[in-house]
């Protein structure tokens, strides 16, 4: 029996192939990632950081990174842990060992969402076509991550650089979000 486990298919693959190059508002699909939702009480929150390799940020709406791993604060007891594809089994094992007996929840959501990068001088402007947040650097600095809305979809919006954002969106909304971004950046093409 053929092993199909390496045949991951992106929900926006066809859009990526057809996307025009727009320097001031570039769109790209991010590589597949491993994702976990971590929830827990204080003891587990403290212990989870060292086990994952990135301390869980306690400041609201911020993310922290170490190496190729990232933790996003999504709520006062909710974090999104992300890592390169294939790291899932090790993460489950490491956290299980570190958090034994500490109430928490760790759920694999690697395939639930996908990442889209929007970059360029007009990136914020394009995202503001559908996102009602103030994306000025003061209100939405580099290092910020939050759930929000984009048009009629819910997204997680992350600012990784002054002119670069990452959008994490549930799989079935990705087509809508991508099309919306294309429409929004059309005037900058």
């Amino acid at each position, binding site marked *: 029996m*053929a092993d199909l486990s390496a045949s991951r298919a992106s929900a926006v693959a066809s859009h990526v192939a057809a996307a025009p190059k727009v320097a001031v508002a570039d769109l790209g699909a991010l590589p597949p990632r491993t994702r976990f939702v971590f929830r827990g009480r204080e003891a587990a929150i403290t212990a989870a950081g060292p086990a994952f390799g990135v301390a869980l940020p306690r400041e609201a709406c911020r993310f922290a990174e170490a190496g190729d791993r990232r933790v996003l604060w999504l709520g006062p007891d909710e974090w999104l842990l992300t890592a390169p594809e294939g790291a899932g089994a090790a993460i489950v094992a490491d956290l299980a060992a570190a958090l034994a007996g500490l109430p928490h929840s760790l759920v694999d*959501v690697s395939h*639930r969402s996908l990442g889209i990068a929007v970059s360029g001088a007009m990136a914020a402007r394009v995202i503001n076509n559908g996102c009602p947040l103030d994306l000025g650097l003061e209100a939405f600095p580099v290092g910020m991550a939050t759930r929000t809305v984009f048009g009629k979809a819910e997204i997680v919006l992350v600012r990784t650089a002054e002119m670069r954002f990452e959008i994490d969106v549930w799989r079935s909304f990705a087509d809508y979000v991508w099309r919306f971004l294309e429409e929004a950046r059309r005037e900058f093409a």
Partner: protein
Amino acid sequence: MSGGFRLAAGGRIDRSRPLRFTFDGRSFRGFAGDTLASALIAEGVHLVGRSFKYHRPRGIVSAGADEPNALVGVGADEAHYTPNLRATQVELHDGLVAESQNRWPSLSFDVGAVNDLAAPLLPAGFYYKTFMWPQRAWTSFYEPKIRAAAGLGRAPGAADADRYTQHFAHCEVLVIGSGPAGLAAALAAAETGVRVILCDEQPEFGGSLLAEREAVIDGLPAADWAAAAVAELETRDNVTLLTRTTAFGYFPHNLIGLAERVTDHLGVRDPRLPRERLWQVRAAEVVIAAGAIERPIVFPENDRPGVMLADAARTYSNRYAAKPGERAVVFTAGDAGYRAALDLAAAGVTIAAIADLRPAATGALPARARAAGIDVRTATTVTGTRGRLRVSQAHLAAIKPDGSVGAAEAVPCDLVLMAGGATPSVHLFSQSRGKLGWNEALKAYVPESSVERERSAGACRGVYELGAVLADGYDKGSAAAKAAGATTAAASRSFAAKALDAGSDGFIGAAPHGRNPAFAKAFVDWQNDVTAKDIKLATREGFRSIEHIKRYTTTGMATDQGKTSNMNALGIVSDALKTPVTAIGLTTFRMPYTPTTFGIFAGHSRGALFDPVRTTPIHGWAAEQGAAFEDVSLWKRAHYFPHAGEDMHAAVARECLAVRRSVGIFDASTLGKIEVVGPDAAEFMNRMYTNAWAKLGVGRLRYGVMLREDGFVTDDGVVGRLAEDRFHVTTTTGGAPRVLQMMEDYLQTEWPDLDVWLTSTTEQWAVIAVQGPNARKVLEPLVEGIDLSPAALPHMSAATGTICGVPTRLFRVSFTGELGFEVNVPADLGRVVWEAIFAAGAPYGITPYGTETMHVLRAEKGYIIVGQETDGTATPDDVGLGWAVGKAKKDFVGKRSLARASMSAPGRKQLVGLLTQDPQVVLEEGAQIVADPAAPVPMPMVGHVTSSYASAVVGRSIALAMVKGGRARIGETLYVPMPGGTIPVTVTEPVFYDPKGERLDG
């Protein structure tokens, strides 16, 4: 007369860029920088429309947003057609196609003008008075006729071909309006470094400064000063400058709606650009610098083409180099009329006379007018005009000291200017729910106290003198920036302004005319054809509230929202009721400030972006197979998979039989999934669902029922216990967000002490249902680490392992009544696993089936669908799920409500089956059921059909229904009355196939 009224020099038009356009099919010429109105005036055209009710010929009255008459339809084809645009705001471009409205067959000969002769029959409120009887005629006759005759403009006959975008923006200071106050405010705020947005509805910043002939600021002509100020603002990257952008609405918490017209002024459009862009601006502070609107004067026949506002005439002459006439009579209530007269005289217009309502005119401007040899007549009114399609005479008469009006003298003219005084534009302030106060000296309402974080500057708060306006604007801009948290203050700055100050004198109400009021049409509201007489009639008929008078007479309604008419209407009411203006009140200023396209509100939300279209990982495969899809909430689900020549009925019959006889494959990925994890997971499930969960073994599945607190079924689904502290919960497709919201609500607000957490995994898993007697044989070769044998994996159990190397949660579960499995695999791998299973099923004739077949298969088994059998008023017992309620449980959501006596009353609607006597007849879902078809109408209804299908395996039609006391009626005959006749049905158990459930084991 083409071009005959274009001045040889001056103005802000670009004579090097001539443009062609058509109006009502006639070709005209204009220049870049013209509006449609200014170009028409330069061509000598004033007649541009017919009035709403009387179809009287109407001309251009204003030069801006306040225009009540010159409404035009613009667009070369239906897909680009916009009705009801104000010609005064339509920028000219080469090839512009415009047409007049509300006339037939033509503008100069309009059959509807017969209404004018019938005017005595059409007083205020004539709709309400006339079309009363017979009542039935209203819908069949009066309403259609009135609708056909009334209305402004026509809707375009094709879908809008343009694009519209929307944009959220944030700033510390939003300045609305770019006249002297707005520019000064923007300069001050910009200097502090905070984010500033300056918007103006016109194509050029500068507002009134663009129409000044003599004004000088800081040594520069006013328009040049404005250009310098804009240049200074352009150098700052904290400033966003938006021309052609109307602030149309002031929404709570300082959200301002701006409508930017991006491409309408371009003859050739850039396909990358939207036609319009909605800016939803959240501003920390707002400076409203909306200016003022000149009031017309209400006098008889003041609506003939050629009668216009004095400042508008000045704008046409000074800004557009378009002479509005050859010989003008100016009717004024203040010095503004003199300023207009002087400017027009300088442009070569003969000023026949200035009629000044005031007993004396003593200021600098009247002095200059007299020195220029103009015939100035104080204490003088205009009692009427003559002329058919253009004014040809104005009748001037003295107002005697006792208030009576003397004999009129006819003064020949082709232009009558009205200068009734300024009305501050308080629309946005009023929309922000700020409180207005009456200023007796200005005879105007001005902003008094704020609710939102805004401030008004300049003429919109009654400050008119140019130097004061600039100072006020700068002050307000500076204060706004400070209030918004600017860390540096704007440097103090003063402006040296020299301008002709027209003061603040004005008049509200109706000017005296001494004529028989029954035959004098003195218009208050041009757009709605409301005269002074109509308003007085309303007061005589007992109306006192200005809001009632507005609705009864329609004054101040329609597209201009009373910009020119409100204050005069108030004055007339005040006069008629002998009550001060302040005691009468003021009508509400409603958004939008000017009409706004539907397109800008729809924005991106059309076509493919109207709503997210959610598709499953397997969608592409189904589409390639030619599946028909149906919408289920936002999802597209494969409805059925027709073979060539098959209709839905045939395809579904084939798919059903394939599942019953061999094996079918179904995409169940849209099922909602929630992972409930934590030491208290079982306790939480106990509280949320009716079922008992504590004893559910790891690796076992259970069908769960969820109620609302009122005891009615809200959702259901199969739940798997994957570990002591981990449940895999499934919900209905449409119910997923609702169920998670409800669970989070209880968990966060009622039981925050529980150590359990919820994570949506709907999109993590693709779900492939493999159903039918051969299902096990298809899957067995593909799985590793999972024993599919009945002993190892009995019905309602779960296993984890891999399928085709892909990790899976494999459930043995059936929604068809056949041996069945649901293969959960990570979503991005859903399609490859699906294809592998499909290939492995080929020897068994594996058949993909859609939601329609799924519905039929479950109905044959009597399995309910929440939302189809239930309607929010069904208890578990009503739909035959009493067995799923944990009787021994102390509490769960909805349990207390189930204990109410009425929730177990014997007459409740209960789930039953229905079989038609004719097996070919398929009942209509939703049809009502009666016990006695001979009962008089309205018959007592005993229930309704909830599901109904032709069942291939049963060989006849089947139906599920909710019937009062249904379980006690099994065996009885009931009736379904339909338009084609009454259908007798037999009440049965709601299971039509394999009632013992033997097929679950294959």
